[in-house]
């Protein structure tokens, strides 16, 4: 069982030299999600177990988080002291075809990856405070944070698939 995300102890302060590894992980999430749900019935992907998020809702959430991250990247590199809180506008993803949700995630993720590549060495060292965690985050830290968050939801998706397909 995955440790709840909000209970994770997260350490930041990563050097810029670690960014290529984090971007590689962020890029890899697209194909990992695609592989995980390939050939799975839409009904299974929309199923909510014990009132929790369905697989589609987990993927939709990752797409929304990338929109927040995009905004936070702009804030960090503009010298904003405190990052905007993560405010989401969830859609009824269970009514969407899985391919459409994946497309949204892919679009947002590729957009962010492109943005990271435009940042200068100086911008990669700029930081702002994360409102909930009360720590300073640089763009490099944010990339790691998002990669860990991706893995958390991939585990959740795997748990749903395991339960549904192997029960």
């Amino acid at each position: 069982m995955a440790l709840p995300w909000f209970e994770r102890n997260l350490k930041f302060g990563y050097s810029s030299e670690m960014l290529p590894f984090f971007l590689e992980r962020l890029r890899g999430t697209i194909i990992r999600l695609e592989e995980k749900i390939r050939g799975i019935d839409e009904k299974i992907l929309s199923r909510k177990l014990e009132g929790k998020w369905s697989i589609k809702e987990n993927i939709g959430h990752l797409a929304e988080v990338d929109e927040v991250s995009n905004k936070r990247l702009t804030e960090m590199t503009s010298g904003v002291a405190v990052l905007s809180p993560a405010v989401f506008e969830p859609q009824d993803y269970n009514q969407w075809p899985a391919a459409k949700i994946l497309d949204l995630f892919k679009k947002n993720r590729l957009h962010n990856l492109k943005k990271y590549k435009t940042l200068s060495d100086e911008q990669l060292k700029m930081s702002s405070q994360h409102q909930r965690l009360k720590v300073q985050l640089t763009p490099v830290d944010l990339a790691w944070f998002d990669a860990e968050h991706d893995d958390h939801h991939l585990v959740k998706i795997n748990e749903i698939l395991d339960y549904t397909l192997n029960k």
Partner: protein
Amino acid sequence: MSIQQTKWFDRKFEFSGEQNVFPSIVERLRGTPARLEEKLRRVPENVLTAKLESTWSIKENVGHLIDLESLWMGRLEDILNKEPFLRVADLSNTKTHEANHNATSIEDLLEIFRSIRQTTVGRLELLSEKEIYLSALHPRLKTPMRVMDHFLFVAEHDDHHLVTITKIIQTLS
């Protein structure tokens, strides 16, 4: 962005976390075959076998991941058998240098890697929470490595080679 990736042997690892994040680590390990396959699906043979400045080719990087899987699993058994030290790795990577991975098709290399990684993940999914926290000393780093730390190290090692492969593709494109 002009950032260079850190060399593997220059990487510093900190294994102090007490929380059980093993499911996320296993998930990362499970994802590597798909990431490699997607990256290499349309790469031409001359790029797959090119050795930039005498470093490993893309095929050799993939072959190296295959070569090391038995070490990773051997170290798991060392910890579970309560050995004081993890078995020593061949730091000169003789196995990879002598394997001539460039002569093997990329399809075969990827299939072998997927198969052995699947076996690894299947084994890890059977471990108990108690076993995840068992440890032995890493022979080079001289630090205690728990099963959880060891496989985080493996996931980071996968990423290191994925980044190296990306760099080769970008350089030759």
